[in-house]
């Protein structure tokens, strides 16, 4: 990399004006326990998601944990460093269908190396392991009680089977943010962002070169072609752009303060691709 190619540090989004969170003092005992229980339910939803991922239950995740009402399904989004998939159909296409296609190719290769092993859907995931534990959460329930926002940090790993019979293990450090909405008496995922800060080979020397040219990051390639392509989070050199930001107390969820694409300062500024 020569001097001309040095990337410019990304803009820092000053989206968190530190506000000491005041417990809603106007709540009575009943309202307070329900407020606290709502926070626990939102946290638990994301925890259950971690187990669904580990158990190759992505379709069940979309059916059980994500929005089901048509209006919410249309505006649901799955974001990452490179843009957003919008609408549950697009999310399913990336998150479930493309993933299952990859798993089938891996299973085909696994079965070649293990004659007699059954090539059937239940065996997808052979040679792979994915763990994305959720920790360090902050959850805000909207003042109007209809939605919630949360942030988690996830030190995870994706170990993927290779066609040569080996595997590649990656540490995946992600900031995970999400909007939730009440449906059917419970909480559902509405807008999700998995913002990757670092992905690094397990066992790779920590001083090994890590720079990747745009378009060559395997995680970016795996993300495919999102509905709204944009450089939403630039993790080059571990820069911090503070996106997605921690949730602050809020009254009502609107597209502009959501973790969907419309909530991104670049989208609001007209920079999408």
């Amino acid at each position, binding site marked *: 990399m020569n001097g001309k190619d040095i990337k410019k540090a990304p803009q820092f989004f000053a989206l968190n004006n530190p506000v000491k969170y005041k417990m809603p003092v106007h709540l009575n*005992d*009943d309202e307070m*326990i*329900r407020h*606290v*229980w709502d926070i*626990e339910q939102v946290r*638990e939803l*994301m*925890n*259950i998601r*971690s*187990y669904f991922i*580990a*158990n*190759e239950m992505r379709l069940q995740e979309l059916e059980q944990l994500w929005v089901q009402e048509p209006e919410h399904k249309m505006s649901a989004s799955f974001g990452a460093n490179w843009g957003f998939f919008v609408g549950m159909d697009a999310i399913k296409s990336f998150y479930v269908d493309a993933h299952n296609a990859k798993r089938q190719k891996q299973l085909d290769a696994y079965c070649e*190396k*293990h004659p007699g*092993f059954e090539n059937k859907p*239940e*065996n*997808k*995931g*052979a*040679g*792979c*392991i994915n*763990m994305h*534990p*959720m*920790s360090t959460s902050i959850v805000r329930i909207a003042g109007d009680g209809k939605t919630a926002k949360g942030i988690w940090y996830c*030190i*995870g*790993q994706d*170990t993927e*089977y*290779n066609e040569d*019979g*080996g*595997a*590649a*293990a990656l540490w995946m450090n992600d900031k995970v943010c999400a909007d939730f909405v009440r449906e059917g008496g419970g909480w559902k995922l509405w807008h999700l962002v998995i913002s990757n800060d670092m992905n690094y*080979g*397990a*066992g*790779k020397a920590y001083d090994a070169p890590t720079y990747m040219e745009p378009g060559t990051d395997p995680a970016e390639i795996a993300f495919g072609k999102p509905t709204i392509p944009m450089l939403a989070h630039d993790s080059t050199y571990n820069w911090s752009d503070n996106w997605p930001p921690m949730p602050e107390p809020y009254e009502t969820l609107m597209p502009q303060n959501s973790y969907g694409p419309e909530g991104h300062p670049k989208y609001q500024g007209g920079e999408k691709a």
Partner: protein
Amino acid sequence: MMESTQMLTKRFEDLREIKNLLGKYVSSLLLKREGYVLADFWSNREDVCLGLNSGYYKGREAVDGYFQAVGRKTELQGKLLQKAFPKQLGELTEKELYGVGPFEAKPLTSPVVRIAGDGESAKGMWMVQGSNTDVRACGPVTYWTWGVYCVDFIKEDGQWKLWHVLYLEDINHASGQDWTKPEIPYPDLPEFEPLKEFSIPEPNVKQTVREYYTPDRPFTSLPPLPVQYEAFADTFSYGI
């Protein structure tokens, strides 16, 4: 039917106590207090059970035997390190030396907990990415772990206690090495040779509860998540 304020508050308090109990347990293991954890945190019942990848320590005597053996290993590790590092450790008493060397940080994440409708038991599952150091025949070695805690809890005299603890790992591999490949062992050191002869008693119910990950491992689901239940007889056990 919406639950009453009192019921929801009680459930929240139970949830917090259960999470704190397991947190205290893993923190105690980090602090090498294995000689105390059975009395401090486990149920007084005889049918307690500790499950690991290689089988189950079923019954109080077996669980106690396991923790006592870990304690003896910890003592030995400290003494060997003291001999190897006399300048740094030579002055320490046996009590001060206990716990020097091994280190097991197993932070608990992603809890999913269900409290029985009758309030007498509970089940929970946690995901754990551990950072650890052991002292082996090769000397001190750090290793990564990825696994889960699956726990049945029981209420005794108004307090939550551990009943069946299942700790399963997918990965237990030397740090700085690729866990998709066989671990490259470090050479034994003469100063730590006594550790070659030391072994923890095997589980009294020996079985492969979970295979460690290798690229040849078929897809292996995690143990089942807890589901809501009324009484313990209505649900599955994380023990045997």
